[in-house]
């Protein structure tokens, strides 16, 4: 693979949820295109229901049964993941692409020791013996800064704090040295100082293992701190994507702009917040044109009728908005 070829490339990926009778279709992910290079960090930002988690699950093909990938391609290291069989996908998950979920208590098995769970991916994917896997598990626990890993390997998840559990999930994720790590709201359940510890740890792991990271979050602060590039989702669509500094300095889409202005800032605490009026839309009954049009402060007549195309604003910076040019 050449250095410039992307590690992961999504091309017009669409995932829909279809009701049992097929009468209601929810376009959870709608024609999303993204690229990610090796070692890079991409933040996917959006509110609940914007499709960010469905997008991540579509990459790993871990969708619930009602969801269907109806179009597009997921190119990972040059090969399309969508036509792969379940067996082939199992060899990729945990080995080449790993994922960290929001709630560490739900992603660890309460009946197995921490050592068993950290060693499991290595035994499954790399077929190494129990003893070797066990000693590598201890090293991994040390790498994620668990103190006294020799005793901790024999303990169970309930004996640990939330921050420690999330670090153990991190150890499992990096155990087979994946090329891509997807973290879905990894610090939402953690306290502020523990969150800072965990973000620092993820950054160190990324550097030492040359990981590409996808950060799924609703928190723009995490994006500002951790990411090289950011993709903003609204109602299943990618509304803006680009380098993180560009997006924060000169957002092109009114939704991104409004989101950035709606968060309180420590540096300027008494400024009035700019609220986004209205509510996020119902995904099964989206408006005809741009989904953000009903809440958009800069709405044009055209926005209500026609969905805007993806428009290139600058280097690697795209936005879906009529304000940025007529199609």
């Amino acid at each position, binding site marked *: 693979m050449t250095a410039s070829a992307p590690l992961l490339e999504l091309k017009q990926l669409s995932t829909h949820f279809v009701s049992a009778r097929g009468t209601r279709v929810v376009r959870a992910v709608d024609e999303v295109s993204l690229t990610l290079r090796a070692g890079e960090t991409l933040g996917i930002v959006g509110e609940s229901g914007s499709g960010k988690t469905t997008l991540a699950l579509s990459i790993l093909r871990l969708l619930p049964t009602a969801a269907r990938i109806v179009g597009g391609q997921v190119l990972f290291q040059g090969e399309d993941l969508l036509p792969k069989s379940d067996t082939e996908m199992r060899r990729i998950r945990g080995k080449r692409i790993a994922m960290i979920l929001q709630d560490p208590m739900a992603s660890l098995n309460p009946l197995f020791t921490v050592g068993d769970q950290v060693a499991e991916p290595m035994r499954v994917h790399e077929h190494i013996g129990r003893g070797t896997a066990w000693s590598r598990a201890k090293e991994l626990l040390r790498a994620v800064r668990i103190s006294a890993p020799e005793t901790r390997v024999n303990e169970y998840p309930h004996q640990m704090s939330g*921050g420690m559990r999330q670090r153990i999930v991190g150890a499992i994720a990096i155990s087979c040295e994946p090329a891509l790590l997807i973290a879905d709201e990894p610090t939402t359940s953690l306290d*502020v*100082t523990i969150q800072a510890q965990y973000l620092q740890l993820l950054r160190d792991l990324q550097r030492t293992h040359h990981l590409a990271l996808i950060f799924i979050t609703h928190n723009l602060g995490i994006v500002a701190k951790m990411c090289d590039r950011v993709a903003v989702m609204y109602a299943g669509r990618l509304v803006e994507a680009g380098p993180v500094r560009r997006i924060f300095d000169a957002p092109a889409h009114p939704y991104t702009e409004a989101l950035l202005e709606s968060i309180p800032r420590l540096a300027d605490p008494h400024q009035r917040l700019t609220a986004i009026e209205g509510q996020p839309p119902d995904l099964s009954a989206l408006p005809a044109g741009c989904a953000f049009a009903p809440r958009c402060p800069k709405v044009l007549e055209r926005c209500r009728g026609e969905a805007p195309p993806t428009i290139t604003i600058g280097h690697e910076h795209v936005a879906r908005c009529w304000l940025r040019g007529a199609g």
Partner: protein
Amino acid sequence: MTQAPALLEAANLTKLFPVKRGLFSGPPGMVRAVDGVSFTIRAGQTLGVVGESGCGKTTTAKLVLRLEEPTGGTIQFEGRDLHTLDGRGLRDYRRSVQAVFQDPYASLNPRMRVAGIIAEPLVTNETVAATALTKRVHELLDVVGLPARAADLFPHEFSGGQRQRIAIARALALSPKLVVLDEPVSALDVSIRAQILNLLRDLQEQLALAYLFIAHDLAAVAHMSHTVAVMYLGKIVETGDAELVAKAPRHPYTQALFSAALPSRPPDAGAPQEEIILSGEVPSPLNPPAGCRFHPRCPYVMPRCSQEEPPLLMVDGRLVGCHLYEHGSPAADQSVGAGFRSAGGEAAR
């Protein structure tokens, strides 16, 4: 800022929870959830309480709401000690102090219509004619920015932000003087949070409400509050003017907490990152460390920190509980600022 009159004054407030142990394992332990905390809420102003989980901020709210009896200390409301109030006085107190909770999916009864939810405090506390009641409900809905037809709907027909508006309308029904806001926006979507924070600020201005605002989002607390109190393991470690504390924190824990707060924009390329990352986790309140409770995680820990508990002293216009500041502030202040960068790097390892 002009000093508004004190509405509620808590002095040396303490709440211990006994922990049951096994039959033969000795006397029951005590969780010192809130330990000798004093604060003042002024009329029409906001006191923000910040801290991590387990620091006692929700217990403090419950003590103020009289949902828990304090083990020690006093709360005075408009100059009267709550402990001395009889049934009638207590009922008056409860009318003056209302609450909005974190999860609007759990705090509204799913089997009641919105009109019934908002009118309930009025029905239980006052004798109001049915027509006046409907009028009042519509007024309250209007105040929180909901249409009058919302009155006939059920909570499940509303989004999270709208439900929080209903909860706020209910809290305002009795025209309280103080509203306790326990994480009022943490369950809401990002684009909705600003709506609710703006609404709360507008209401404060219109109705001269005082707020006890509890949150773990530091920027939101700094945005909403006139005064803040930073809690750690049941103690206030620093308290004072919100802007002063947020912009130039003095206690090592406050400094670490505000340094761990996420930036509102990406750092400039090449700008030095002054980040303080604490090692370790919050110890159990069942067996808090002796002396200063922060000393096992503190980057400046001195021998006396593990023996003596630091008193709250006035440092640069706010109260700080830390031995570093005991002998005058400016000199200690500079050495702390400089020492932190290196010590922070150390602690991160």
